[in-house]
């Protein structure tokens, strides 16, 4: 079961096998939480959004068709919920521009101050740079360079053609490059 392909687990879950769905969650929980975290800036909110993503997908498991990788569906929902969250926060006057919770804090909590210091410096720069990007740029960067989705899958997730994915990703990377250079974190 633990090594079964996602769609095989889905068919078991549709048949009522909760353990199969739990395997799916365990397999993808960290990457989904990570994506949501980088989109909305709060670990707590990211976990809520990620949980909701799995739950919503479960509610529709019987209607999904394996036209794409299961993770494409999963991240489409996660992306949608994250965008909604960002929009709602902005409506309330809260600017969600980047990770407020620092991953390095976890390292400190685990008694690794040296690792925490390393993480702090490197992570701070990239996180600040990402925070300065639009959600449109941030999402394609995260989907490609963090999650490793192919262009076609990204297109399905953000509902744009592959040509748009290509150009948007290029602009996002260039925007991040310029931002890192401004922050002094890139000397190339």
């Amino acid at each position, binding site marked *: 079961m633990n090594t079964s392909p996602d769609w095989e687990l889905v068919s078991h879950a549709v048949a009522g096998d*909760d353990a199969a*769905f*739990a395997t799916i*969650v*365990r397999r993808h*929980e*960290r990457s989904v*939480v*990570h994506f949501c*975290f980088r989109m909305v800036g709060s670990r707590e909110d*990211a*976990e809520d959004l990620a*949980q*909701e993503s*799995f*739950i*919503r*997908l*479960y*509610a*529709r498991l019987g*209607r*999904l*068709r394996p036209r794409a990788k299961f993770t*494409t569906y999963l991240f*489409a*929902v996660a*992306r*949608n*919920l994250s*965008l*909604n969250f960002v929009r709602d926060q902005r409506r309330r006057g809260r600017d969600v521009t980047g990770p407020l*919770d620092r*991953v390095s804090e*976890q390292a400190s909590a685990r008694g690794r101050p040296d690792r925490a210091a390393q*993480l702090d410096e*490197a*992570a701070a720069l*990239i*996180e600040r740079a*990402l925070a300065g990007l639009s959600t449109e740029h941030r999402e394609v*960067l995260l989907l490609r*360079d*963090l999650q490793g989705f192919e*262009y076609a899958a990204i297109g*399905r*997730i953000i*509902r744009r053609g592959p040509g748009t994915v*290509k*150009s948007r*990703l*290029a*602009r996002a*990377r*260039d925007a*991040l*490059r310029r931002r*890192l250079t401004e922050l002094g974190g*890139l000397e*190339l």
Partner: protein
Amino acid sequence: MKDEHVTEELSAYLDGVARDPDGIRRHMEECAECRQRHAALSEVVARVGSLEAPEVGASFRAGVMSSVSELRCGRRVSWLRVGFATVAALVVLAALSGLAWLPGARPSGGHYLALRHTGLMAELERRASAAPGYLEWVALDATGEDFLTAQVVDDAEELIDVVAWASWFEALAEAVDAEQELDALVGALDEEETAALKRLLDEY
């Protein structure tokens, strides 16, 4: 070659999807600026990829499975948030549509939205015949209805596309689901979004 185009091709080259990878490679052998830009983009990609993921506690999966259990037992409260403003929006929509149905009531087959579906499906078939890949792109949206509410102000036309797609692809029984889905969506929209949706539907 325009600067933006160069960046786009270099970015695609990084991902192994450039149109002319051999040409780019040969060009970079002679162009120091492009080599430097390629190196910078590579560094950017590596840094994003090195972002560390937050830890996920055991309670995360437990929370998901608890909700899954509730769903299977039919106990989970719908995530559809129906508040006063939403009810008001439904009343406004009902008044505009000339129907005398109360907030929360399911629309009948004769509802004007159902009539719109006929026009929407014809429009969808026309678009599908012109661009075979078009339909596949919207197939995933059935799983993320809140996304549709977020999109309705920015691109309301796509909302209609998605609902029509869900209807057409999933056959008649699920066309009913699509109509109900649209009803649920309408229930989740605010007045401005509802008005925008109504204007768009009127165009069909």
